């Protein structure tokens, strides 16, 4: 068997694809932004050659497709060069979104685990609740998001909690489904062994069911944290674009600030990647402590 080579098998192919994407991006930026320059030139009554258009398409104020370096410059300007407390700082907006995401994710995880424990231990709950939990995944929950926000606003609850509730709602279902599967993962033979040890139900739970559900829990947590970020971003849309990454997206689309949209998008992507990686690291650490191979 050939030893897997990190460079040859992962870094190089991914790098080449990323480079291709970058090249395609630059080329399409030129072609998508060129008509605007031609129009400006035609209105001024001058002819413009392609070699004159080319540099101009790289530095438009409101390009159809901003060039990558414009996005990077915008991100640099709004994160490093801007004080964190400023309303124009992307770090500030990312923090608003992140706090809602984490709060919602936390509540969703606890609720999901509790419900899964109930479903595993009570047959009536299993039979009556489980079909609805599965059916509810097919419903576009995000459609309810603006209503939850506006209605809770009307009662006087605003700010972090409504957004967090949407994240909770979204992150809760993958966790229930994953945990039910995980808590049922021990085989009959293992349950019988616990029975011969005269283990109480709570001992069976903590010493057998809970440890064996960990891989399933972490797989669901990865899905859940990604989806609760989506929930927080969508939850920020109908609040009238005050703060948060979703608000940046909406404000950018109202005022045609494409560079701002793209930089908010990249920030959201970086946030999602970081969160998923953190959950992945926790996964490896927990499984290692439990003596399991990840």
């Amino acid at each position: 068997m050939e030893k897997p080579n990190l460079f040859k098998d992962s870094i190089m192919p991914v790098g080449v694809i990323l480079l291709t994407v970058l090249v395609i991006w630059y080329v399409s930026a030129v072609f998508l932004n060129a008509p605007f320059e031609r129009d400006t030139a035609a209105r001024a009554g001058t002819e413009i050659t392609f070699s004159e258009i080319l540099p101009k398409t790289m530095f438009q104020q409101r390009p159809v497709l901003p060039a990558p370096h414009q996005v990077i410059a915008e991100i640099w300007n709004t994160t490093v060069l801007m004080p964190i407390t400023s309303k124009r700082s992307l770090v500030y907006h990312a923090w608003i979104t992140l706090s809602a995401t984490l709060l919602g994710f936390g509540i969703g995880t606890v609720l999901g685990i509790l419900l899964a424990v109930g479903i595993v231990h009570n047959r009536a709950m299993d039979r009556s609740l489980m079909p609805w939990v599965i059916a509810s995944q097919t419903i576009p929950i995000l459609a309810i998001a603006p209503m939850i926000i506006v209605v809770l606003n009307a009662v006087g609850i605003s700010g972090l909690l409504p957004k967090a509730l949407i994240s909770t709602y979204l992150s809760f279902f993958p966790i229930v489904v994953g945990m039910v599967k995980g808590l049922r993962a021990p085989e009959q033979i293992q349950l019988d062994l616990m029975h011969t040890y005269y283990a109480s139900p709570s001992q069976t739970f903590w010493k057998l069911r809970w440890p064996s559900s960990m891989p399933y829990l972490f797989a669901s947590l990865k899905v859940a944290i990604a989806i609760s970020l989506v929930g927080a971003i969508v939850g920020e849309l109908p609040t009238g674009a005050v703060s948060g990454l979703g608000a940046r997206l909406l404000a950018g689309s109202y005022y045609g600030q494409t560079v701002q949209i793209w930089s908010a998008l990249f920030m959201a992507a970086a946030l999602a990647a970081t969160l998923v990686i953190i959950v992945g690291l926790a996964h490896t650490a927990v499984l290692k402590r439990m003596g399991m191979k990840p």
Partner: protein
Amino acid sequence: MNYGLLFGAIAFWLAAWATNEWLVRRKFRTPSANGVVRLAVPLLFGVSILVLWEGLVRGLHVPSVLLPPPSMIWTRLINSVPTLWADFQQTFLKAVITGYALGCGLGFLVAIAIDRSPFLQKGLLPLGNFVSALPVIGVAPIMVMWFGFDWQSKVAVVVIMTFFPMLVNTVSGLAAASAMERDLMHTYAASWFQTLVKLRLPAAWPFIFNALKINSTLALIGAIVAEFFGTPIVGMGFRISTEVGRMNVDMVWAEIAVAAVAGSAFYGIVALIERAVTFWHPSVRNARTA
């Protein structure tokens, strides 16, 4: 406060719960009775939730702006069928179906195209997995800017959202056939195309249908959320956001009910096709015998 309604609803809920407890503990002799119980238990639970909702809202006099009772939502639904149908046509029939077909089709074709190049697979798979975890929904404002307010921009959002799950699942599905089975095809002197059609695609169906099921939900979410960023004056997402603004919460709930039924039906149809196509798979066989 109307205590009669309140306690009536709670009593009904408790009675339904007790009936369910009794039903799941009883053993029925005939398989058909077991089937009926299997269906009746969740149905009874659903009905009891609706009754509880109605009773609590009416009994506690919750303002209908906050949470309208189910009966009010139902009346609204019946009375505004033309509007709901127009929204359904705009969002579901035009944006979701087109985008879903295009996105899944493209994902499938690209997966087949890169099948013969391990290099491209190694490059695209980690990226595809990565993109699947991203809040792709954020491209909605950009797509609205590029493709205009009408359904074309929603199709674009749906295509982007559904493409990557399909790509990743198809590629891993095509790798699912074991080396032994492949060797057998090789001894038959089967060409790459024959191996693909007769062995590897059938082995990949469970993975592909998994992606199709995930995408059926994603597509509806994508289309509805994309409408928050700009749309002509029709569409489910548009209706939800404007009626919320006008505090017509019953209309919003009616629209959500339509979205829920459409989403579940879409998922159900895909699941039914899956059962027909992957009849050999253990998960389907077990469900049939159990």
